[in-house]
């Protein structure tokens, strides 16, 4: 009988065919969504109206990853949410099967393979890399050593004009009190190597926009990360006459989306110099402020945009003297909700509400510029819905893969991009390590791990096989 380890159990998981290896699951339970490549069997599974990701992996890894993801969720770091680990699976032949880790599919997420293809613009790529670097820095700030940084292990979500990156795979990860410079450098080396490999792979599969060069792409990661890390953690020293620089630093960090929870300030005995160093910084400066004011939980840059609109609204309505939360509530019902509820139900899967609001604001700005007048929000909303939203693809769940996608080449298995294209098929060549028949006997007699065969060891030491 399979066992379910879960903090928030979903009973609909129980009747699924756990006795079948994930690779062979009937397609009625599966959804073919674009995703990264994986060394394990990974499938998207349908459970009622929800889509979950399922990964078959050995027990220690599954439980470890479940705990790591739980920890990240608890610390409010962007990652997929773990749902359950299913262990003690027995196949139809009576043989044990590896456990399955189930995570919630991140709605409105865009895997990198969907983002780097189809005439992607250089600025978009730059934003994706920025999002990845912010995620890595946030993980490093809380002592999380990833050890498998790669695009395949990241999902992106639209975040106003930027992107927000989410961690998807924590199998190799470790939680430390703090990270050393060496550990962070190691993660960066892994990141650049993996990303280079992934870009080369896209290039080899004719899936990378021709204007992009893998080497140039990855070279910028290092400088982006170091700049951000410096701003977040480096000490700064200045003369006692320049105390405004303390405020400046805090503002710069806020602008990057971080709050300073602890700033270490030391002054020379004579007051001539001041040294400041952020000790604790928390991501989500704007997200938290918006949440406090309106109860909306959105991405950082979306929150920044919404807060700007809230400020503009307060100014326009002449309510600067009124309590901010009161104005915020007004703005929420009159502006935000008015826009969101105007969208016909059948179009709601195209953008999530905060992103939609951001795009309506953009639309209004352009229309106002064009027509040289202040376009009302309601009018802009209808214009946006009809001119833009209707033409967009659904993104609640990114397009399912159809035969003939990927430049007319068919995936060998639509549920698993790791297996490449159909037309790569050829007969397997001879493998001197695996195809030698005499090896079979030897393999039979291989001692199971856990048993120490001293006779063999002594024999080997004495030079007899």
């Amino acid at each position, binding site marked *: 009988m399979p066992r379910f380890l879960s903090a928030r159990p979903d009973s609909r998981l129980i009747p699924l065919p756990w006795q079948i290896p994930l690779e062979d699951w009937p397609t009625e339970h599966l959804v073919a969504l674009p995703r990264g*490549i*994986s*060394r394990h069997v990974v499938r998207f599974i349908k459970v009622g109206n929800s889509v979950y990701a399922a990964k078959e*992996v*050995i027990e*220690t*890894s599954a439980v470890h990853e479940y705990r790591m993801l739980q920890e990240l969720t608890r610390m409010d770091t962007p990652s997929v949410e773990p749902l359950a680990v299913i262990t003690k699976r027995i196949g139809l032949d009576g043989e044990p099967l*590896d456990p399955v880790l189930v995570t919630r599919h991140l709605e409105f997420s865009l895997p990198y393979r969907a983002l780097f293809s189809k005439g992607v613009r250089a600025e978009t790529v730059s934003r994706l890399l920025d999002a990845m670097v912010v995620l890595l820095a946030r993980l490093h700030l809380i002592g999380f050593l990833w*050890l498998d940084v*790669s695009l*395949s292990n990241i999902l992106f979500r639209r975040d106003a004009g930027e992107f927000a990156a989410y961690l998807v795979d924590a199998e*190799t990860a470790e939680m430390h*009190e*703090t990270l*050393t410079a*060496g*550990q962070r*450098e*190691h993660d960066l*080396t*892994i990141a*650049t*190597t*993996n990303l*280079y*490999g*992934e870009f*080369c*792979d*896209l290039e*080899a*599969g004719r899936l990378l926009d021709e204007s992009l060069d893998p*080497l140039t792409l*990855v070279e910028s990661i290092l400088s982006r990360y170091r700049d951000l890390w410096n701003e977040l953690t480096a000490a700064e020293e200045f003369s006692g006459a320049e105390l405004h620089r303390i405020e400046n630093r805090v503002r710069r960090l806020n602008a990057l989306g971080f709050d300073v929870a602890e700033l270490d300030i030391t002054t020379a005995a004579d007051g001539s110099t001041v040294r400041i160093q952020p000790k604790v910084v928390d991501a989500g400066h704007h997200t938290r402020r918006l949440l406090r004011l309106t109860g909306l939980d959105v991405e950082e840059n979306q929150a920044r945009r919404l807060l700007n609109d809230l400020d503009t609204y307060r100014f326009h309505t002449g309510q600067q003297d009124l309590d901010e939360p009161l104005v915020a509530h007004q703005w929420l019902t009159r502006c935000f909700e008015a826009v969101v509820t105007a969208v016909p139900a059948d179009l709601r899967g195209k953008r999530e509400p905060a992103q939609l609001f951001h795009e309506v604001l953009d639309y209004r700005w352009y229309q106002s510029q064009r027509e040289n007048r202040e376009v009302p929000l309601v009018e802009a909303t209808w214009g946006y819905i009809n001119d833009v939203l209707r033409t967009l693809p659904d993104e609640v769940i990114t397009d399912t893969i159809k035969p003939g996608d990927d430049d007319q080449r068919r995936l*060998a298995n639509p549920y698993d991009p*790791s*297996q*490449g*294209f159909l037309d*790569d*098929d050829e007969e*397997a*060549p*001879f*493998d*001197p*390590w*695996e195809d030698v028949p005499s090896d079979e006997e030897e393999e039979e007699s*291989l*001692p*199971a*791990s*856990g*048993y*120490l*065969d*001293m006779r063999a*060891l*002594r024999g080997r*030491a004495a030079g007899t096989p």
Partner: protein
Amino acid sequence: MATVSFRDATRVYPGGDHPAVDKLNLDIADGEFIVLVGPSGCGKSTSLRMLAGLEEVNAGAILIGDRNVTELPPKDRDIAMVFQNYALYPHMTVGDNMGFALKMANVPKAERDARVMEAAHLLGLESFLNRKPKALSGGQRQRVAMGRAIVRSPQVFLMDEPLSNLDAKLRVSTRTQIAALQTRLGVTTVYVTHDQVEAMTMGDRVAVMKDGILQQCDSPLALYDSQNNLFVAGFIGSPAMNLIKGKVNANGVEVGDWTVPVPREILAKAPGETDLTIGIRPEDFELGDHGIAVEVAVVEELGADAYTYGTLAGLSDDEKLNAPQIVARLTGRTPPKRGTTVRFAAGEGHKLHVFSNKSGARLS
């Protein structure tokens, strides 16, 4: 190719009350395959990561060849961590999957191709070089991953529990392959595992650690035959060595109604100790008319051998619960029946290990 030396290398975690690695001294020869082994938290992985540059060295030094690398960032140490992550890229050929990191490092194409070809030859993957990795077996994928590290031709390979996420069968075959490859490549290798069987079957030498302190570093045979202390005696061997406490008398150590003879000069090494521990490997027991009396609880026949599990004879049921299990591996005779009491000859003419209970040190 290079030697590796730890010189009083110490790592103390911030807030930790004792060092995670305490004055580690270890000289690894050029081309040697050394395995660090020990229970969780013993400092084996921290030691490897100090060598890799991932953990700070708070005191002491680490040398690769005659270069002091203690303060160098990881990428300047000319080491390769193997197996950290080995996603295979489906649209790239096996050759490109092995060599892409060289391309990123701007290694010229001719040299890249030569290194990839050489690695493929070593790994038996030549006829796969121009193919996509899609149809590769689990073992072949492992070999491509090894190829990625090999083409970088580093001075030292570092492997941190590389087999831990493989299933049992692949683990056994991959460990054989890694050991064979290392011998052929002759690149100094430091390998970390918690599995003593893996350590003993792979390493030229095995370094056993506990609580941040190196307990013993020796060839697998020396480690098996002559342990420095009680910890190593109990850790190395599967099934483990029988470690039995007994009172000291003029002729040896009393175990039940039998005195295991121990030479005077050995007893004299622990003056004032009234109790000592004797250690006997399961295969060093032999059924006899005289010896340690053991009540057999379980008999397990495995081919030509039989394992018996029991406790000292004459114990009450309550005492049996807390008594150490005595395991014997008997060859070429009809094994005793379950529930019977037998005697195992021990001492004169039989291999015996004697340890101090006070210091844990070996006396024999």
